């Protein structure tokens, strides 16, 4: 045979099978581009210089592994689909006299083209996209966008090697298939008789049990820590449940429906139920895949979006001023900071750095987190675990409160308090039921409170402010808390506003971090000074939330691509399977209108079922997500709900668009005119 025969034949056969080959090539291009981008971000030297991008780079590093694994699994999946559709063609070649060696040569040439187009095209797309991706990333992180266009040789190399190896593996897999198959089996590969699926009660029960288990976890976790601990168990249970649901439960339900003669023997139900029963066997796994991928996309996007959009509140809560100085001391041994002396030092230092102070205020406080309801809060974990969420209590004195608000000092008895953030009439704090509980009557529930961070930084829970009579009460509260075994400090928080630009303020904040205790000699007795600036909290939070959002969107897009492709391949392969079936029905006397109607109802059910189940999963996940978000101090339920609904709505639209596009192809295949009798 002429030398150019196989290259030509391979090119032809790719064109001939374009309905299957082009989406496969697109998948490779998409995955390659995605992988290049995530790898380029993980190793971008320009980004490594920016402290705010630390999280993104860490996440991207994780993303590299996820994407690589995903690429391997998904390209194998699409490749095996492609080969299944082609067994007949290859069998025919074999019968027509091409040896297995020749078919192997054909496949090798096809792989060469695939690699050239897929990896080459993917890298080009990836490099072009990288500019766009970094633009979006910098925007997300609230960073200034740098100019220039970079190609990262390291990432190009990794991508080439990884996808070269994956495509080589798929080629070897295909060659192995050809070697062990005989031509007749190849020729009939597509139409092997399929038995009706049996009802598998064990799987059905297992599915219902594990799904209920996953849902039960989602409904019963009591706080963020439990949510975090059990989240992966819940996810695994739901995944197992979903697979069982589609493979076994669906069949059990369909068979029950078939038993009901009145329902079953109606044209649409008759064709629909039997058709779905039949196709459930080979499609159940595909549908479960679609469902799980969709759920992942929805959860990732709504979770990271809620985090990103809610982070503004968190920043406002954690950084009520440009500069925050928290001084901690132990009142049993230390006299506490000398406030005017301290203020003087701060002013001095700010001015040394070329800025000036526009506001300087502060207050004493002590804080702890507790959990409970109806005004009774437990400090111990055993007591706390009975309740759903933690509350972070910050106590301050009436005198400080008056100074902050500019009002007269409220007259409070020793057991009276003003509260903000909770609605209880009284507050009682207990510890293991052992010690004398500490109780306050609530004199007034405040609707407004001055912005103080109250040391809430790093605490998990909704914030509550409690104003008590005086420092003695504050010390009593601290004493009470010491029964838990850890001795709490009293802290004084300075809130300082500055005149510098954002960058100058950030630098100033950083310089306060390196402060030596010696710089503050003569400012009283205290233990620890903690500094933070609005700018660094802002950068930290946006770095973290932006990193999460970026990873969420990136993997979301990747998984969405997978979902779309699985849907596309399913529609096509089902089209070919159903075509003959509908032609027979037409001959037996089913008219075009009925055909269309029954195709519609079947296709709709089969494709929107995964979406429906995914939405259900997301609904149950919502509570868990709220609890997990609390770890990041996000407590805005309304915002999270809005994000979830918004993401769901967009996803449904996209899903419907993809569905209707592929459904058109399906109809075209199915309704090609009958071949006559």
């Amino acid at each position, binding site marked *: 045979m002429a030398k150019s025969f196989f290259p030509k034949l391979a090119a032809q056969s790719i064109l001939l099978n374009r309905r299957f080959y082009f989406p496969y090539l697109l998948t490779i291009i998409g995955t390659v581009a995605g992988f290049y981008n995530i790898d380029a971000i993980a190793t971008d030297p320009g980004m490594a210089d920016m402290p705010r991008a630390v999280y993104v780079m860490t996440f991207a590093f994780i993303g590299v592994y996820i994407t690589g694994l995903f690429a391997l699994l998904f390209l194998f999946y699409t490749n095996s689909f492609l080969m299944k559709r082609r067994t007949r063609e290859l069998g025919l070649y074999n019968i027509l006299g091409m040896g297995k060696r020749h078919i192997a040569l054909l496949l090798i040439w096809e792989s060469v083209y695939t690699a050239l187009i897929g990896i080459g095209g993917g890298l080009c797309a990836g490099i072009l996209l990288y500019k766009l991706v970094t633009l979006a990333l910098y925007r997300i992180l609230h960073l200034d966008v740098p100019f220039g266009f970079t190609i990262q040789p390291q990432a190009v190399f990794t991508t080439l090697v990884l996808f070269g190896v994956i495509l080589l593996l798929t080629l070897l897999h295909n060659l192995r298939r050809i070697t062990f198959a005989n031509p007749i089996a190849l020729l009939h590969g597509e139409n092997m008789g*399929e038995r009706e699926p049996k009802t598998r009660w064990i799987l059905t029960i297992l599915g219902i049990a594990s799904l209920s288990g996953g849902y039960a976890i989602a409904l019963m976790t009591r706080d963020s820590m439990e949510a975090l601990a059990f989240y992966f168990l819940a996810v695994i249970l739901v995944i197992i449940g979903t697979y069982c649901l589609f493979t076994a439960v669906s069949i059990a339900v369909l068979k029950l429906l078939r038993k009901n003669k009145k329902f079953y*023997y109606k044209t649409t139900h008759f064709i629909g139920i039997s058709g779905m029963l*039949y196709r459930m066997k080979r499609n159940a796994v595909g549908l479960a895949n679609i469902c799980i991928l969709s759920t992942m996309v929805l959860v990732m996007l709504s979770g990271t979006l809620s985090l990103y959009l809610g982070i503004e509140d968190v920043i406002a809560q954690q950084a009520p001023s440009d500069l925050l100085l928290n001084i901690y001391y132990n009142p049993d041994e230390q006299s506490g900071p000398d406030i005017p002396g301290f203020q003087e030092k701060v002013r001095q230092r700010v001015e040394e750095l070329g800025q000036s102070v526009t506001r300087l205020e502060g207050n004493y406080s002590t804080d702890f987190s507790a959990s409970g309801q109806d005004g009774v809060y437990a400090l111990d974990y055993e007591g706390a675990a009975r309740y759903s969420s933690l509350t972070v209590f910050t106590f301050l004195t009436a005198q400080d409160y008056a100074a902050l608000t500019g009002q007269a000092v409220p007259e409070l008895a020793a057991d009276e308090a003003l509260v903000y953030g909770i609605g209880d009439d009284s507050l009682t704090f207990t510890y293991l039921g052992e010690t004398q509980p500490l109780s306050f009557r609530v004199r007034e529930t405040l609707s407004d409170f001055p912005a103080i961070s109250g040391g809430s930084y790093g605490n998990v829970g909704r914030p509550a402010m409690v104003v008590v009579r005086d420092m003695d009460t504050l010390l009593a509260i601290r004493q009470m808390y010491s029964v838990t075994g850890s001795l709490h400090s009293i802290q004084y928080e300075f809130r300082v506003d500055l005149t510098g630009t954002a960058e100058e303020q950030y630098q100033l904040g950083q310089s306060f971090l390196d402060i030596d205790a010696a710089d503050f000699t003569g400012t009283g007795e205290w233990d620890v000074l903690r500094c933070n600036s609005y700018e660094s909290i802002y950068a930290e939070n946006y770095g973290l939330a932006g990193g999460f959002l970026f990873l969420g969107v990136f993997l979301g897009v990747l998984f969405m691509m997978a979902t779309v492709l699985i849907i596309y391949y399913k529609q096509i392969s089902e089209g070919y399977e159903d075509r003959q079936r509908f032609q027979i029905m*037409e001959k*037996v006397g*089913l*008219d075009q*209108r009925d055909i269309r109607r029954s195709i519609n109802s079947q296709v709709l059910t089969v494709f929107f079922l995964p979406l429906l189940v995914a939405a259900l999963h997301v609904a149950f996940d919502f509570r868990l997500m709220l609890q997990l978000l609390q770890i990041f101090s996000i407590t805005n339920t309304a915002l999270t709900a809005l994000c979830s609904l918004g993401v769901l709505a967009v996803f449904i639209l996209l899903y419907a668009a993809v569905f209707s596009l592929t459904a058109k192809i399906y109809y075209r295949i199915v309704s090609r005119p009958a071949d*006559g*009798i």
Partner: protein
Amino acid sequence: MALLEVSNLKKIYTTRFGGQQVQALTDVTFSVEEGEFIAIMGESGSGKTTLLNILAALDKPTNGVVKLEGRNLTEIREREMAAFRRDNLGFVFQDFNLLDTFSIQDNILLPLVLSGKSPREMEQRLAPLSEKLGIRDLLKKFPYEVSGGQKQRTAIARAMITNPRLILADEPTGALDSKATDELLTLFAAVNREGQTILMVTHSVTAASRSGRVLFIKDGQVFHQLYRGEDTDRQFYQRITDTLTLLTTGGGSRG
């Protein structure tokens, strides 16, 4: 009045590319009386399948008229066509055309479900028919679980369950072994004796020799026809063979 009247049927296909015209049927005229069992023979490309497609209302003739009980098939509107086909015609195909998604029972009931009959009525029709065709014990099985002959009997049951005026069979024995072929033809003959009109297209002389009349088609027209008369199957077989020999060796004139 004849049950089926076919007059001056002409069909010209235009190939999809190049627009070449192919004449599949030139001029076909014949009629079928109620209760007849007719075989249509002819070589590949003689126009048999085109004829059957037109009789089944799956294809429209370029010229000519097909009347079933005096009703012109070409004038039936598209929307009524499926129902008309379902109620008046039964089909038996060479490759059975059973749906592997349905059990034997549901395959047979398919036309009744399409007509919207009640489950009770379905049961009433199914029981005697499946008994008669000897597939009563197979009803719960699936097509891939039964033999070719059993599949074809299922297809016949499906064709007959609507009590059609006419059964159209396209090479019904084409995919069967000789034993199954024999059983099937005996069944056809029995069904025909009970009054069912059957029109069968076939290559097989054995199959044709069991019918009451054989039409030979060549080059798109009815070339010859044979009546069984008082012949036995063997004698009729011999006459059909002779005619076929004449046909292939090129007898020019109508016999």
